[in-house]
């Protein structure tokens, strides 16, 4: 089981990193989300894996470690906040700069003649 979890986390990291290295904003955001999954899963797994032993005290023990779960829980929510800010930044860049390329320095915005006319 540990091996499977490690492969999942590794694959999420690999694909997330690959997507973050793309040149357009949208794949970068998707890559960021995948990396966030990987990080959250990593954090959670650092409490070691246990089956059928949630950290709920009304259930018979043993219980798994609750602390990584608590930290991961907030991390998931914060990751959403981060993704949301990144999305709005990407949108702002796209609408202001006229292109969704990641690196737009030294490039004039792609303004069409119709747009300029308005």
């Amino acid at each position: 089981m540990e091996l499977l979890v490690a492969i999942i986390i590794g694959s999420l990291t690999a694909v997330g990193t690959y997507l973050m290295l793309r040149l357009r904003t949208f794949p970068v955001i998707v890559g960021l989300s995948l990396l966030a999954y990987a990080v959250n899963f990593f954090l959670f797994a650092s409490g070691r894996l246990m089956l059928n032993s949630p950290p709920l005290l009304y259930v018979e023990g043993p219980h798994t470690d609750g602390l990584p779960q608590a930290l991961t829980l907030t991390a998931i929510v914060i990751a959403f906040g981060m993704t949301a800010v990144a999305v709005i930044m990407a949108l702002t860049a796209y609408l202001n700069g006229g292109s969704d390329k990641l690196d737009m320095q030294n490039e004039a915005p792609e303004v069409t003649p119709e747009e300029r006319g308005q």
Partner: protein
Amino acid sequence: MSLALIAALPFLGALLPGLMLRAGRNACALATGSVTLLALLGLLSHLPAVLRGEVVQARFEWLPALGLNANFFLDGLGFMFAGLILGIGLLIIIYARFYLSKTDPMDQFYTYLLLFQGAMVGIVLSDNILLLLIFWELTSLSSFLLIGYWKHLPEGRQGARMALTVTGMGGLALIGGMLILGNIAGSYDLTVILENREAIQDSDLYVPALLLILLGAFTKSAQFPFHFWLPHAMAAPTPVSAYLHSATMVKAGLFLMARLWPVLSGTDLWFYLVAGAGLITMTLGAVIALFKDDLKGLLAFSTVSHLGLITMLLGMGTEIAAVVAVFHIINHATFKAALFMTAGIVDHEAHTRDIKRLGGLRLLMPVTFIIGTIAAFSMAGLPPFNGFLSKEMMLHEAAHTSTLFMVMATVAATFSVAYSLRFVFHVFFGPKRDDYPAKPHDPGFGMWAAPALLVVLVILIGLFPKTMAGALVETVSKAVTQAEELPYYSLALWHGVNAALIMSMIAVATGAVLLALHKWLDSAWIATPRPEAKAIFDALLGAITRTATRFTDLLHDGAMSRYLAIFTAACVVIVAGAFFTADYLQGTRPPLPITNASIVGFVAIMVPTIALAFLHRNRYLSLVLMGVVGLILSVIFAYLSAPDLALTQLSVEVVTVILLLLALYFLPKETPRESSPARRWRDGLVGAGAGLGIGALIYALLRREPDNIGWYFLENSYTGGGGTNVVNVILVDFRGFDTFGEIIVLGVAGIAIFAMVATLMRGEGGRRLRAKASEHVKIGDRHPLMMVVATRAVLPIAVMVGIYIFWRGHSFPGGGFIAGLVVAVAVLMQYMASGLEWAQSRQRFAYHGMIAVGILTAAGTGIASWFFGYPFLKSTFGYVTIPPLSKFEVASAMAFDVGVFLTVLGSVMLALAELSRMGRAADPDQPVNTDPMDIVTDGGAIRATSKDS
């Protein structure tokens, strides 16, 4: 008054000038002055104890684990410096009130000045050397602001930058030196360090520590070869020069050397470095000063020279030399501050500081003339002024050190006489001119009061040294040397005819001749090529900057993907290097068996993940795949005993996908294939490397037995926090402060999104958005009947579920985070089904307000525990039975969870509502239907509104 309060007062007072300026410039100066006066009175209240030889202390633990504590102590040395800083500071504040013109922002000036003052007082009162270092850096920063106060002057900006570079660099060296020193002594408290002379001087690290500390002290006190920044800092307003560059900041280096004198001095290295640098600086500064035409330039190099003099005395390492150094610090501060203020008055009234354009001011500015002359004679070392006393004692010490010191000291004294006399004769004597840039006359009383007071001190200390300064010099000297009894010395004008007197007489005679020959000497000086410090500094800085830029450009050329790839690859290489060069121990924790269910989950998450790498150019498809990954992940969380995580992941996944869908409405739907196959291979390799590293890391971790603190929460969450859901109890109780921080971050994210959308809509982007409206694909049915009806029916149920999840959270899976997300999804469905207008018009509370109320509720819960004498966020709980409900538990942490709930709900909704507002703006022509499917009662007749009517 507590020492900590004395040090804190200027910092607190720095808030006042900005507020008081509205009440006028006098009120502003008065407020600033009162702060300093208060601190000065507080300091003076300790005078009797200090004179008795006691050490006043104030100690507060700050970060004891790091050895960083807010410990202050006051002995003679600290008292003298703090007195100089606050006393002269007060005079400078009065002087600056009249010096600054109406167009100068006075509030900024006083704010910077008080910040600087606080930092200086902090240095001299700190017992803890880490605290001292913090204040040390603060003086560099605040002096940067003061030197560059006239932001419109390029010299001011460049001078400020040079001062910051040199003193900041020295400050870094000092940090290293002080840490070594603290390490040797085993404590960061000065009082402890000062008792460990043998341990420090015997240590192998004595030499590096000494070199680093001296680097800090020499740069701050403008000692050769770091003397060049001080003249360039003269671009500052004159009150700043008088305060920082004569009386206080440049003496911080001297203070440090005096403070550490008992433990560092006495070795050969100390003597050669400190006395040598002092000797060179003293002579060099005096020679250059004679040829400066700028009044402040002359004074700056004279200051360099006098600082060298004091450094030399400290470097000699004898107790008697230390006494002289102390005495000269007092004397120099009085006459040099007065001289700077005089120079400022001349500049202020004649509109020039160029000595070659001045002269004959004796009759036009009689008061300034008297003040300036007395101070300059003291600087020259003429009797009966205080400068004479300490200069004689210095010459005496130099004569008893070696012939080299005797000769050099006489040369320095000669030039000192020459430039001092030049200050008097070339400015005030000579014929009256008619080409002054402005008509000079004496300024008002307010401006000359401060230098006049200092000059009175110059005379009184000169005539009655024992009465005026005897006790202080003795106490301070004892503090510097840490000696019980000082060797014999006498503060008096007349010591009989001795070597010092003869050297002095030679100096005065030769100095007068030098001044007489000044015209010829000056042309010779101008004709001689000399290294220009600023040019060298600029060239050096330029070379460093160019090298750094070239190196940075290579790695970091502005393309984000490039440096991300370099960063990731570098991490992978470093970690792999560490891994393959060390031994690897196989973990011992037995692995869990691989079940059928786990294989299903594995395949279900791996397929979309891998597919994403290849299919990501179709953006809708990539969003679907991403959503699948997130959903399977939540199932995995549930399978691996984390029900709370599963619920959170599930609800976050829903809002994330909706968010990205909304964003995709504006963005292109396809990603073009832009990168070459080689580049995709490169990125694939980087990604694979990172994945392999992370995967191996977590595998290694999972196969090891945990050594953690998790058991503590399992054992205490019911007894201590009153809940059986350990995760929730940790979130709202044990680690409540963390959670508090997290929801603030989330709230900030929501508000940032709101601000960004508002800015976007106003600017070019908004125009472009509206222009592109026609391109968007429209769906035929904007408010599908089934969806509208279903979502409205579901809303109360969903909210009920949210409340239920919230309520049970403390003891069962659930809680504020999850409840907030669930309710957000429920509300979001109304937006999707019935449209923005319909939903917004029915929404009574602004989402920003919800975030604010949430954070305030959480904070309020935390603060409430203060009233019961508990620390912030300490929670309590009890059990309540309200019929017909069964017995349930109420914890104060639940109020905190309400705050979490509201913040999460507000932030999520704010982010999504703003995006839909953008969508609405992109489509201004679309008819608005504010009541789709609503049953409207209209004059008794009931009709269902048709869509898009």
